[in-house]
């Protein structure tokens, strides 16, 4: 029996083509993952919305509730960063 290591059924694609697909799939997936990681590591540098202010919600207390008006949004009330 002639058996490709990765396909089955009559009319299956030749194993060479499958290897091409596998190679390209793996390559592009890894490249995509690497690019995404770079994006992740850079993304913190560009805080343009109130999103980073939302990171303080778990620390919200009445007595320390910051003034969160628009003009004050860029101020980080958390001192240890």
């Amino acid at each position, binding site marked *: *029996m002639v058996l490709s290591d990765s396909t089955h059924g009559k009319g299956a694609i030749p194993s060479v083509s499958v290897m091409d697909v596998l190679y390209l799939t793996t390559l592009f997936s890894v490249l995509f993952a690497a690019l*995404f990681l770079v994006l992740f590591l850079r993304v913190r540098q560009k805080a343009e919305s109130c999103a980073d202010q939302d990171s303080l919600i778990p620390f919200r207390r009445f007595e320390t509730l910051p003034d969160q008006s628009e003009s004050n949004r860029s101020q980080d009330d958390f001192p240890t960063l």
Partner: protein
Amino acid sequence: MSNPSASSRKITIEFDDQTPRWFMIASIFWGVVAMLVGVIAASQLNFWQANGHIFEMFTRFLNEGLGLSFIPIFDTDGIHFLTFGRLRPLHTNAAIFAFVGNMMFSGIYYSTQRLCSARTYSDLLSKIHFWGWQLIIVGAAISLPAGLTRGKEYAELIWPINLAVVIVWVIFALNFFMTLKVRRERSLYVALWFYIATIITVAMLYIVNHLQIPTSWVHAYPIFGGVQDALVQWWYGHNAVAFFLTTPILGIMYYFLPKAAERPVYSYKLSIVHFWSLVFIYIWAGPHHLLHTALPTWLQLLGMFFSLMLWAPSWGGMINGLLTLRGAWDKLRTDPVIKFFVVGITFYGMATFEGPLLSIRSVSALAHYTDWIVGHVHSGTLGWNGFMAAGMFYWLAPRFWGRELWSKSLANFHFWIGLTGILLYVASLWFAGIIQGLMLNETDETGTRLVNEFVQTVDKIQMLMLLRVIGGVFYLTGFLLLAVNIWKTARLGKAVNETREVYEDPELEKDRMVWGAVFRKDPVAYTFWCLFFCILWFFLPPGASHVAMLCTLGFAAMAWIQARRHATEWSAWYDELSENYLPFSVLVLIAVAIGGLVQIVPVVTVNRAKNIEDRLQKVYTPLELAGRDIYVSEGCYNCHSQMIRTLVPDVLRYGDYSRLGESIYDHPYQWGSKRTGPDLAREGGKRGDDWQYLHLMNPRSLSTGSRMPNYPWLAQHQTDFKALPSKIAVQRMIGVPYPIMTPDEIEQGAREQALEIAGRLVGKQVKIPVAKGHAEPTDANSARDYLAGTQAVALIAYLQKLGSFEEVAPKKKTPGQSPNPLRFGIPDEYRTGGMDVDPAPKSTAAQSGTTASNP
């Protein structure tokens, strides 16, 4: 976020901390149970006698060895509800749904109230949720050892319990979403996004994978069969890991880690990218559990592709978690909570690197069906889930009972013994898996003959399996120390509910986003068109697919340009979205639904009748169907696969590779995911009935070194012939082509086939361990009549049917006919030149070929 305004006023609220406290206690209790069952089940892979026979060995030693004749000998060859096949589902269900489930609910109830500045919407719903969930767990703890199972991994619970799960989940969802509705914070914190994704996606997965038609109060057949069932199962199974064991724990990480480290999460922006990429990509990765199987190749590639992509968002989360500790690493020396969190997140990173690696088809060829996969799963559950749970419990206990943790030293000791346990456990299974995989694949110099018997590979990893048990015992010991620590803290303290002053602002600007502002915006529009053309690219035939690919790239480029040009507007849109829980939840639902739709719908609608690959499974006779239900009930699928992969070593060892059509009538499918014993896809006809019988009664009498337990009770328990008519009626409803038969014909046919098999067994003079209270057969006829009614005979009938199929001639294609470029279809059909076959069988019996010369 809540801006104090003229209309706001201060109020004091008391949080409901009783519910998360109860869930925490329940999680610890069930965690101990799950781990204890795990240790017993792991021991059985070393000593099959750990299924109860050990009691006989022990009492015999006391009675005869030490002369303590007053101690009665506990005479048993094993206890049927303690076999590996029944305990393993109990272990996995207890670990996932009881231990992690209760832990997750504890964290969600605690943090949601704080993040919403509101008490949980309804105390009554919280109580129903808590007690309902515990009842479900008790139901599982009784039904699974009793052999009442659906035969699908992590989805074993029987249909009445499934219904209870759905009802309790809806109650939980209602309570959660109503709490979001009455919140006093404008924005939804990132932890809440992960909780939303968990609730929505688990509901979707659970309902679809549990679609079934009951045959009795404790039994049902799933509506999907064969490859459809396999795909739906792993869409569910993989995403049970994703959305039950990962997303809620990530939400917990995003709340509790910053609290413990006393600093906000490293990057909130990163958490946005992390969340959306994770929930979108995760759902597609299920087919990586079915690589090299009869699953269509396009699905296998899709599963592998998305699994590799998944590495990125997973590590995004890990990085965000670890970097949150910037400037606080000194706490690692002194604070056990931080220790547990850091190691938990590190294990998350390791497991999510290993997962994509194992999804590469060539790696899967070695690792799948071996203990490497089990090791991988446990680095996730013990390392990620278990350590995150411990960190959270140690952080919560002082707050729940208003006093310091009883012993920080004990918590530190728990950390070190637990970590040693995990490393011992995971490393030994890595080695065991790789050794077994290499041995199973090893051929002689001609490449046509296998070198090792299956049982030799089991022998080889014996020591490693023992190390695994020791690692498990270490981990369990650590968790028991946690239980003691929390217990002492609770005893010395007093249960308290936190009170907090918050702003009550009736004019708080939240949940006011109109639907048009949600969907008719650039970010959604570009995402939609990119995905739309991407899917067309995949499904359209060559030519048209290239146009779709260009459109995808075009829209992606435009999205990139627009996002940079209108960064402020895009940001403002997302800020507004995170202040509106309902539109947010709808977008989450769409993001998680796409993957399932693209993968499952074509397989359900197209492949079933068409793509059977020239073979059609023979329908089981009533007795064989009864035997199959016994196979499922005993949990044989936990150790035996029924799927010969398209790999040379698999074919050499087990016979011709499995085709799609060969399991088309299997409800549920039984392809399996682990080979502690050999594959059974072509077991039928390989050996005689007497061999099968002797092997069931005592596997070691035929296969020295086998770890399979004895099944003497199969020759004592009776087959339920009376249930067959209703079972066959349901089989017909779900598309299995049984001829119309009266209940009497069904029962009579089954009994006649049973008598034939029993007659052959009696002719071979097999030993019959009759049930207690049953008279010993006095002659051949009474022995035959007795055996014919037992489960052993029905199971043998089923085993002898495995691998039976009818050949189906492929349709001849019209010469010169090319695919219509505008017609949709499954990608394989165009890209592999896949065949059309006539679903009507043309030839009669054709038993599969086997390779008797190979071990």
